[in-house]
Structures are given as C-alpha cells and as structure tokens.
C-alpha cells in the first residue's frame, strides 16, 4: 500500500487519480499508524515553503516521515514536497526542511536570465547527469522527455544528489535522490504518460 501524506496543504485529487490510473493502491492519510504500515510514501505539497514546513511540523508528521525514510522506506516528494526534503528554504524567511537530502531551496529569479519568465511554468525536458547511472526512478522514460513544471523556487547545491535537471538559462534541479529518498520538482501527475511512468517506477522501487 502506498500512502500519500495529508498534512492539510493542497489538492490531492489529481495525484490520487494518477496513482489509480497506474493501478497503485493509494491512501491519503495523516495517520501515523497507516504511514507506518505503508510500503512507500509520497509527500506532496503546494504553496509557500514556510507554511508547508510549519503545517508538517504542527501535524507531527515531519517526525513520522523522517522515521519512515530513515527506516529505508521509499519516499517521493513532489514539487514543494521535494523542496521540503532539503535542508532549508528561503521563501519568506529562512525555514528548516527535513534535511533528508543536502541542499537549499532558493528563488530562481536571480539565477535565470531576465528574459526568462518566473514562475518556470510549462513543459521542459529532463536531462540526466552524464557522469552517473540513470536513476531507477527514470527507468521507463528517456533523456529529453518533457514534464510539467510550475515553480518559482528550486533546490540548489544538491550536488551528486541531483538525478535530473531542466535547462532554463542555467540548469535547474528537476529531481533529487539519496538512497531510498526521491524528490521531483515537476508534477508527474500532470506530465502525461511520462509522468505516469515515473510514478510507476517509484511504485516498483
């Protein structure tokens, strides 16, 4: 069973539909016991980093997510859920993240050329680092496949934990991984067959 962490932020309708479409048995839950019993966990999120980090802490689910991740359970953060996996975020002040993957979440405006619009919104191609094997998360997709992004902040300084990037002036972090913990900046649930194939690969990890 796959558990989608419900900590009161965002609309999980599309995500649960996409999981159903790939045949995954998914429950949306904020219950510690259910999360503990799940085989794998998805951490979604929309909105601002600080609010979401606070909501996660207030619900006590930060502790549960950390415990399950450290126990080796596959964890996938999506969009803001990915950003929360990193050390800290700088949206409206500095806020602590879960620290499961090294890196910081910063505004992309200062790093992209002025002619590029922010938010980085739309379909962009994934590029995999050349010096490392392709992540198992991408076993069913190919270099250059497009996925759907909507974000104004991005993970930075993730180093060797970056498993995919998207060119937007500089390369922006599109996905990260460390051991059993994965994060994608884009929305696999809105990225057509490519996105479904990424979710499918996660369900097989």
């Amino acid at each position, binding site marked *: 069973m796959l558990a989608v962490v419900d900590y009161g932020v965002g609309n999980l*309708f*599309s995500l649960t539909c996409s999981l159903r*479409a790939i045949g995954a048995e998914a429950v949306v839950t904020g219950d510690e016991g259910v999360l503990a019993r799940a085989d794998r966990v998805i951490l979604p999120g929309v909105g601002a980093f600080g609010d979401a980090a606070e909501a996660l802490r207030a619900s006590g689910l930060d502790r549960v997510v950390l415990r399950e991740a450290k126990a080796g359970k596959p964890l996938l953060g999506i969009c803001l859920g990915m950003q929360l996996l990193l050390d800290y975020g700088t949206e409206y002040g500095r806020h602590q993240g879960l620290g499961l993957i090294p890196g910081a979440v910063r505004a992309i405006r200062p790093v992209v050329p002025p002619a590029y*619009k*922010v938010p980085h*919104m*739309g379909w962009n191609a994934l590029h995999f680092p050349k010096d490392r094997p392709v992540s198992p998360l991408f076993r069913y997709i190919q270099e250059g496949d497009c996925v*759907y992004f909507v974000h104004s902040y991005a993970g930075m300084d993730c180093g060797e934990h970056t498993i995919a990037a998207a060119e937007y002036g500089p390369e922006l972090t599109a996905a990260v991984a460390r051991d059993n913990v994965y994060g994608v900046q884009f929305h696999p649930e809105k990225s057509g067959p490519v996105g479904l194939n990424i979710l499918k690969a996660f369900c097989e990890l």
Partner: protein
Amino acid sequence: MIAKRIIPCLDVRNGRVVKGVNFQELADVDSPVELAKFYSGCGADELVFYDITASAEGRALFTDILRKTAECVFIPLTVGGGIRTVDDFDRVLKCGADKVSVNSGAVMDPSLISRAAKRYGDQCVVLSVDAKRVDGQFRVFAKGGREDTGLDAITWIKSGVKNGAGEIVLNSIDTDGVKDGFDLEMLSAVCDVVDVPVIASGGAGCVEHFVTLFETLPKVDAGLAASIFHFGEVSIPELKRALGEKGIPTRL
C-alpha cells in the same frame, strides 16, 4: 528550454461540447471526456474547458464532466466561464482543474484576481481578456465579447498581473474566426508590458499561423484554438512536427 504549448479549447454547455467537432475516430464527438482523451493522446499540452452553461444544474453537470476528465487525462486543465467568486474557484479546483480563468467576473470585481491569487497562488489564476480595436485603442470587452467595458486592454492586463494573475490569455475579437492568423500587433503590445506567460487566441487557421506566431513573438508561450482542431483542419502532431522543423521547442 521550455516548450511552446498547444492548447485546444472545448466549449461545454450542459455537459456537452458545443462547437462543432468532427472526428471519425471518436464514437461520441460531443463528449468532453472523450474529446479530452483524444487531444491528450495526440499531444495537446494543456486543455481549456469553457463552461458556457447558465443554470445551476448545468454547472453541476460541468463539474461532474471535469472530474471524469481529470480522472483519466493527466495534463494541466484550465477552466473558464462563469467564474465570479472565490467559491467558483474552489468548486472547479476540487474537481481536478489546475488553473482557473477569469474574464467578465474580474471586470465586474477586479479584487477577484487578488483574492484568488492569495488563496491558490498566482500560477492558478489566468486572466482571460477579449479585446478589440476601438478608436485606436485595444478595448476590453466583457460578456462573451458583447459589451464594451471602456477599459484599455494594456492597462487592464498590467493591473491584473500586478494583482496576481499568473498567466494571460489574449483573445483578439478582431481576428477571432477570421482564420487569417493571430493578432500579432495586439499580442506584441501585451508581451511588452507583462512578464507572465501569454497565450495567444483568435485567428489561427493553419499550421503556418502558429509558426509565424512563435517566430515573430518569442515571448508568446502558447497558442490556443478551438474549431480548427475540432474539425481536424490542423492536427496537433502535424503542427508540432512543423514547429519542430523550424527549431521551435515543443513537447513531442
């Protein structure tokens, strides 16, 4: 490099697609769900559903259609038509919409944009503008293009973006239905004043019109059309191939 988006628009009334549709491949051409699946399968980057229903029963039917579409189509869905309140945003977002487009509702109450943006984020609020040349000015029209609001389109769009609109759909009434190409002059004037994505609408008649649009105005992010897609006059895979051959980035 971000891909230029191609967006078919479906007008829905009482749960059925109303603009003529002509696909031999589809068993039920008037079903928004079937049409959405079809477009998604052939490479549409996003879908716009325009609800032109007036009655409450029709609205319920519409949200039901939206939910059924979102259950099986996994690309961004934008909903417009009759959005007057933040509750209208809530109603369609809960049924699977990703973005909500406001037009007359924002003209009647401009604070709708800022209130919705604050609640759901700028990326969720699309300002759709029907504009037409009047006395040497681009004028905003409301009520489906029937009513001259007296607002200057450029000023209106600038203030909309300032209030939190995350995307602009510019529909030129002057070129709409003429099939002689997008309104490059009007689009250019809008692109000059905003730094959010701009979606061109009105006037596309053939593949070349999209090529000209993206080559002439690199700041335009997407092209939207309805009947030329519905009647198969322009096929999306063919259109994307043509754009790709001209070096215009698309999602294949």
